[in-house]
């Protein structure tokens, strides 16, 4: 167990380093920088341009910039936003609260809808119900999240005469307003993920119910409920754990678009606005943070595996 943990932590650290490098290089690969943005098209003043570059440290060699950033990052200092002057860590902390709430709500809603739907489809394999659920899955998987969000927004105002509040409120400040704001974004994201869950769980269930130990369970005289929800479900939970991790990572990726659409001040919007202004510290810091979260989720899933699957226990 300790060996496995050490190995997992080692590979997680390596992945984190490579991600940091990629985030840094990607940012530099985007054409234009903050100096260009500030001076605009008219900026032909060479000396002013050079002075600004030096001010932001952009005149130094690439590796020096990277090592400097990496070194400070390791101490927990992500620098300050070039536009707002605020500490990037504080900006991330603020935005992450929004994104985390959105992601966890979406995860909860999609799990509660997708897993039962998938189990039902798998159990009733080949029936009309199965076909109906699979049709939902296909539609849910193929509808773009931003389109679903837009349709929900338009539909709610056109048919219900209701629009979500414009000003973002924390759950702690105003729970009612907060939930009203979160409602449509969560539904838009959850439809896709519920469809993904449902399709995945259906496949697992179909395979599981053909395994020989299920025949044993039937031969023991167990009821369908015990067979499906005890013997089959417990086995399905193992791959489902990994899938849940994947879904969560995917949700974190999907929030960028949906946060912009619904004007939620989360990580996605932080990254997007930072990117538009070439605010390197903000984008690098926020992206790296998201990557680290993803790595952390995968690590957690690996550890959960050992808890759920007796064959992996020491």
């Amino acid at each position, binding site marked *: 167990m300790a060996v496995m943990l050490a190995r997992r932590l080692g590979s997680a650290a390596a992945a984190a380093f490579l991600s940091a490098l990629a985030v840094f290089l990607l940012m530099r690969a985007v054409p234009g920088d903050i100096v260009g943005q500030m001076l605009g098209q008219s900026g032909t003043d060479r000396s002013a341009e050079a002075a600004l570059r030096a001010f932001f440290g952009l005149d130094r060699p690439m590796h020096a910039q990277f090592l400097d950033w990496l070194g400070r990052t390791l101490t927990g200092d992500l620098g300050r936003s070039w536009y707002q002057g605020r500490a990037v860590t504080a900006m991330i902390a603020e935005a992450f609260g929004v994104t985390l709430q959105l992601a966890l709500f979406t995860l909860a809603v999609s799990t509660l809808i997708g897993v039962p739907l998938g189990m039902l489809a798998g159990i009733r*394999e*080949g029936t009309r119900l199965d076909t109906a659920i699979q049709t939902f899955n296909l539609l849910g998987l193929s509808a773009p999240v931003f389109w679903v969000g837009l349709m929900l927004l338009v539909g709610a105002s056109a048919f219900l005469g209701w629009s979500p509040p414009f000003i973002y409120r924390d759950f702690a400040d105003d729970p009612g307003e907060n939930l009203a704001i979160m409602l449509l974004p969560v539904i838009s994201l959850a439809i896709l993920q519920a469809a993904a869950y449902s399709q995945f769980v259906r496949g697992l269930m179909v395979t599981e*119910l*053909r*395994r*020989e*130990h*299920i*025949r*044993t*369970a*039937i*031969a*023991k*005289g*167990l*009821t369908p409920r*015990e067979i499906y929800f005890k*013997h089959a479900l*417990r*086995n399905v939970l*193992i791959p489902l754990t990994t899938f849940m991790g994947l879904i969560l990572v995917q949700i974190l990726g999907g929030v960028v678009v949906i946060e912009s659409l619904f004007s939620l001040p989360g990580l996605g919007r932080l990254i997007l606005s930072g990117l538009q202004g070439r605010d390197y510290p903000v984008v690098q810091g926020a992206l790296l943070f998201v990557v680290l979260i993803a790595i952390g989720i995968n690590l957690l899933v690996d550890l959960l595996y050992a808890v*759920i*699957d*007796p*064959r992996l226990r020491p």
Partner: protein
Amino acid sequence: MADALLAIEDLRVAFHTAQGVVQAVDGVSLSVAPGETVAVVGESGSGKSVTALSVLRLFGRGDRVTTDGTVRFARATGAVDLLHLDETAMRTIRGGEIAIVFQDPSASLNPVFTIGEQIAEVLRRHRGLGRAEALAEAASLLGRVGIADPQARLKAYPHQLSGGMRQRAMIAMAIACDPRLLIADEPTTALDVTIQAQIVRLLKDIQQARGMGLMFITHDLELVGEIADRVVVMYAGQVVEAGPAAVVLAAPRHPYTRALLACRPTRDYAEGGADTIRISAIPGAPPRPGANGAGCRFAARCVMVEPACRDAAIPLRALDTDRLSRCRRAAEVA
């Protein structure tokens, strides 16, 4: 037949596949008396396992199966036809009155539950025991099937046991509710040779101690002599020979049975221990299930075949009070 524990009559089982209808079992009749051991012998595809699974209606999910005939089973409350019994009643029979031990214990046990839990589950279902009582009983069952330190093994997961131990656990699960009939579907095929004999002896012991009927499905005639009172030989979905085990093994009355007996490995002893083991085989392959010509289904592989054998289907004939053969020349087989 009237006092039989299990009486299968004219059982037909067809699988409807994309390639057409496969008649896996084609008019099989056999019976098991209380306390009797009946071995059902045949090659793969002979329909012996399908016959066994039909008794508990354990067909695969997604298989489209039609059955015909009757499978009468004597419950304590009277005889029922298992092919037409409703699911609820069937569930009280499965695991309670008729239990089954499958071929591959590794696949037949649920990998994520402990052995104790899997045995206790049957006891709770059929005997209404509480959790603690059921576990205590499971431990004594594990002891009964020869597993050392049963208390500790209760907490073991299937992957922590050897193949032989897993099959012992399956047997413990099967006998947990004292079934009137035990079906063993090639219970030793997936095990090491050294373990096979132990498992067969264990089944025999338990069968005798509890007076259960035992339906033993195997392709191994060697085992038949050790365990069975009567033997039923199947070929291409039909019974080709049946009778008391000792008599059939000593003097088969069907060329197929004789050929099977000839296939048993024989050892030629030589000086210095350089023995040679000879294994012969029946030439040809059994017909694909359902793909049979007009006459005797074994004709293509039979050494005694005559033109008349291929003309019309051969009926199963009684040779004397307790022997049956589906051969026109039964009297000449030696």
